[in-house]
């Protein structure tokens, strides 16, 4: 029986990492929000690796946090161990990665959702969208429930026509034993939305007490307690006592492992044609690695705890869809796993995704007002990429309800901007993962300055609360003070403590007075030396000092990137009007015209990034737009 089950401003469908951020953002911005999930027990579930962050992904989490999102806080609070990666490779690419307790992560997020004002959480399986006059009006759920709203955010992950493959057995299913969603795909297709099919996979899980850890190399957390959030957070497990962090373990596959795989390739769904979806190149299965890199004698595997003092371990690096008995053989060929008990087999999953070039830069379906899509549904992979899109989609869904200007971040604003622009403007051919090398202004988009780049933007849309704002203002004030101090203070060659510090790092002794700023620019001088010289700064957050130091140390390169951003911006500022008819522009190349019509860029900068659009096409567009603005386009080209 059909019935009206409720009316909301925003409805979010799916409570994975994208859905949680979307729902929280919309509710925090003051919209009555409904979050529908297939199963309350799998809210914010991590069906793959038990960790958050890493290069680019960690940057995203910091940006989500800077805007007032949730992922960073929940990851911090459920942290098993934290490591800062890439510390030797430069400030732009320092990347935090936190192992989290899966169950605690879920519980923490569920708790936050259930205590968020304006937010209703309910279990339900959405089967179709309600659309009138190219406007979304709500959703139909299984059992005839009709939910009405002005915006709908779809974040249904890999559930659309999900199909699990393990060896020769294949069955309809969502990740981790969940039910698939069979009907929503057809509803989207019927609305003219183009779908594609991707594949991803996950490794087997094993039982802790069947592992001989002495054969593995321990991978402990860092000595420093790292956090994603700019707010004060602590792990519920190890507080800030870094010695209590849970370690991971590093081991290697053997030649025997590879023989087993080769001998069973004829049963590998990846090679038998059973799997049709396109898989990610950066996350190949072990059978793929053994085939493609046949000369390698060993591949790394990491044993990662699924939780605090967990009985279950995740075997990173061993993603596979081989038959279960082969998976057991593979595991047992690894030193230390001879007697291992496999708790859950690895599997491959195929699913429908929405081709993201159909979206606007707000992640709204073009031509279908009020429908937003985010996360793995848009063809990305990774919890962080999902959460990031969820946040952007949730914000824009709310802004639509509030009748306010959309929120769009540029590539130079943050990885959030890079991610969305890549998806929408460039389109994707394989599951998309964010990489730092995808950002052209990497040195400006550091994880340490995510708040300086974004918190004021978050405040402007009503997502950053008072406590975060106060901390942000304090930080900017401290930063200003430190910068001024270092700019204005001179160090005399007569200061013995200075010469001593310089001597310690084999830096030239001072012969005349020098500004602190100049000293910092010496490559061998690090924060430690400067801190020694300025004990009065010790009360400040070390992040502030680090930040000020980086800005001075890499000033030349930072300035160069800023100039490039400005050049970029001039094209971004040239707006292409909505419903622009590219067919009326003479002189465009055939391919360029076709691409422009398909992607409908909103400004010349975006247009210039579309594959197949040439610099000459941009020039032609520029002239045409100017002509139009002066009011002559109709007359002349008619």
């Amino acid at each position: 029986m059909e019935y009206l089950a409720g009316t909301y401003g925003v409805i979010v469908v799916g409570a994975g990492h994208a859905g949680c951020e979307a729902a929280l953002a919309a509710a925090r911005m003051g919209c009555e929000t409904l979050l529908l999930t297939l199963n309350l027990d799998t809210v914010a579930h991590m069906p793959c690796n038990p960790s958050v962050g890493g290069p680019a992904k960690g940057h995203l989490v910091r940006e989500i946090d800077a805007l007032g999102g949730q992922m960073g806080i929940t990851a911090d609070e459920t942290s098993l161990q934290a490591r800062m990666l890439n510390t030797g490779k430069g400030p732009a690419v320092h990347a935090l990665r936190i192992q989290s307790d899966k169950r605690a992560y879920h519980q923490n997020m569920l708790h936050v959702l259930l205590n968020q004002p304006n937010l209703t959480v309910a279990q339900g399986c959405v089967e179709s969208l309600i659309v009138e006059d190219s406007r979304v009006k709500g959703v139909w759920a299984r059992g005839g429930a009709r939910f009405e709203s002005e915006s709908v955010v779809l974040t249904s992950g890999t559930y659309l026509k999900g199909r699990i493959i393990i060896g020769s057995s294949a069955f309809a299913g969502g990740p981790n034993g969940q039910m698939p969603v069979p009907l929503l795909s057809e509803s989207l297709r019927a609305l003219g939305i183009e779908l594609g099919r991707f594949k991803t996979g996950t490794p087997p899980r094993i039982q802790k007490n069947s592992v001989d850890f002495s054969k593995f190399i321990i991978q402990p957390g860092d000595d420093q307690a790292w956090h994603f959030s700019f707010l004060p957070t602590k792990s519920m497990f190890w507080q800030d006592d870094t010695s209590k962090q849970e370690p991971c373990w590093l081991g290697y596959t053997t030649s025997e492992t590879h023989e087993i795989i080769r001998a069973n390739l004829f049963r590998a769904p990846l090679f038998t044609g059973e799997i049709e979806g396109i898989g990610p190149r950066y996350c190949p299965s072990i059978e793929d690695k053994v085939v493609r890199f046949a000369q390698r004698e060993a591949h790394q595997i990491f044993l990662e705890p699924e939780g605090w003092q967990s009985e279950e371990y995740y075997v990173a690096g061993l993603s596979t869809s081989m038959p279960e008995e082969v998976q057991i053989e593979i595991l047992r060929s690894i030193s230390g796993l001879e007697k291992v008990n496999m708790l859950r087999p690895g599997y491959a999953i195929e699913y429908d995704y929405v081709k993201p070039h159909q979206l606007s830069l707000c992640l709204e379906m073009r031509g279908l007002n009020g429908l937003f899509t985010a996360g793995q549904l848009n063809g990305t992979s990774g919890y962080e990429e999902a959460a990031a899109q969820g946040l952007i989609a949730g914000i824009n869904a709310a802004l639509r309800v509030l009748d306010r200007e959309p929120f769009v971040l540029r590539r130079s604003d943050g990885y959030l901007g890079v991610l969305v622009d890549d998806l929408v403007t460039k389109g994707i051919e394989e599951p998309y993962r964010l990489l730092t090398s995808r950002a052209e202004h990497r040195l400006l988009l550091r994880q340490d300055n995510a708040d300086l780049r974004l918190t004021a933007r978050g405040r402007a849309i009503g997502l950053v609360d008072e406590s975060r704002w106060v901390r942000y203002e304090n930080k900017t004030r401290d930063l200003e003070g430190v910068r001024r101090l270092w700019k204005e203070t001179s160090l005399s060659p007569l200061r013995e403590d200075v010469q001593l510090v310089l001597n310690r790092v084999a830096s030239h002794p001072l012969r005349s007075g020098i500004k602190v700023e100049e000293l910092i620019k010496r490559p061998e001088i690090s924060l430690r030396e400067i801190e020694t010289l300025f004990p009065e700064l010790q009360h400040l957050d070390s992040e502030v000092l680090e930040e000020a130091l980086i800005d001075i140390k890499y000033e030349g390169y930072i300035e160069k990137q800023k100039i490039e951003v400005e050049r970029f911006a001039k094209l971004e500022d040239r707006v292409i009007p909505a419903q622009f008819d590219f067919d009326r522009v003479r002189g465009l190349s055939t391919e360029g015209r076709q691409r422009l019509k398909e992607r409908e860029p909103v400004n010349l900068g975006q247009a210039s990034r579309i594959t197949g659009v040439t610099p000459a096409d941009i020039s032609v567009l520029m002239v045409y737009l100017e002509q139009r603005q002066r009011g002559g386009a109709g007359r002349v080209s008619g």
Partner: protein
Amino acid sequence: MKSTGLDDTIVALATALGEAGIHIIRLSGPQSKEILDRCFEPHNSVRWLNNESHTLHLGWFRQGDQRIDQVLVGRMHAPHSYTGEDVYEINCHGGAWVAQSIIQSCIREGARLAEPGEFTKRAFLNGKLDLVQAEAVIDLISARTRAAADQALTQLSGRLSEEILALRDNILEILAFIEASIDFPEDDVESLDWTALKGRLEDALRLAGELLLGSKSGRIVREGLTTVIVGRPNVGKSSLLNALLQEERAIVTDVPGTTRDEIREFVSLGGILLQLIDTAGIRESADPVEQMGIRRSWEALDRADLILLVVDAGVPLNVDEREVLRQYGERVLVLLNKIDLHPQSAVRSTEVPGVCIPFSVVRHEGFDALEAEIRRLVFNEHLDSARPLLSNVRQIAALEGSAESLKNALSALEAGYPWDILSIDVRRALQEVSEITGHNVQKSLLEVIFSRFCIGK
């Protein structure tokens, strides 16, 4: 992705590239004055410093310490110029490569080579052209772009494009190493240490340097066209050489420091610098000393940009002369000497694949034709040199930019900067060279990372 800023200062040849006696180079944009302040040495510096619009200035255009050409510079301040921006027009004499050198100097000082139709586009955007002309602007842009596309990499000789692709692959691999280690820090990927990275950067820089050394404009300006005079004994080689050196319109240039053992003289003929090499001859001989000289002659021919084969109009071609024609084809200009004695030439023009010029050193006949022929060969780029030459200004500019970025990367590495900083310069180097090869940087980078490194923790 190519970034073409709207506020960049742009430069290009305003006249058609070819045999014109005077070329005009147009420079437009906010930095144009700065650029000329560094490259232009006015005869009347007070007038130049007055900075008045719509004035003409005579002076030297310089490239570093070297004066390239005496030029006339026209100055027009914004908004009263063709584009509506600050515009300078540089009138130069000399050949096409003088114009190219001037353009390259402007690029080195911060200008960017104009896109096809860009001056006109700016004129329109700055309101200097009325609406009716907009369609014409669009036509111009698309027509010029089609023409420019024809001159892409496919126009380069096989060997040259191979060398450029090799350079690009080199830089791409360096970047892939850096980026793979940054984006996949825990994957077991092969990595480069400081020394290996330095070595690879130096290799790439050397490759770029070699390509630039071989660029036509660069080399011809620096060294002149390597021109070998060859012929039988007593056919008039030496008289030709002397005549060329004494030729009143030929300027004998004083270039010190030649280290090779042939006799080298420099003359500028019709604005083209010739590095003349007189050879011992090419006749087979039993005399060991003579044999050595003969071997050297053939080596000189191999390296030559231009060969002047002097033959006797009264005697049919011999084996050696035929051999020179067969081996070097269009690089050879045949001078039918002593045409005054033998008005009916014994050499049939069908025997000569290239050009045959009736000549008389004694009577001073044929010099005009020789000059015209050399100019034709150079301007029409018919000279198929033994070494591949990079001749397109856009390509040279890109290559210079790439080399510059590689240099920056090396100094950053030596100064102890971390990899994320180095990557900025290396990526820039890759972007520049990819402008020549037409590859998408981001896409090729990921392809190399995923095919070369076993990623996937």
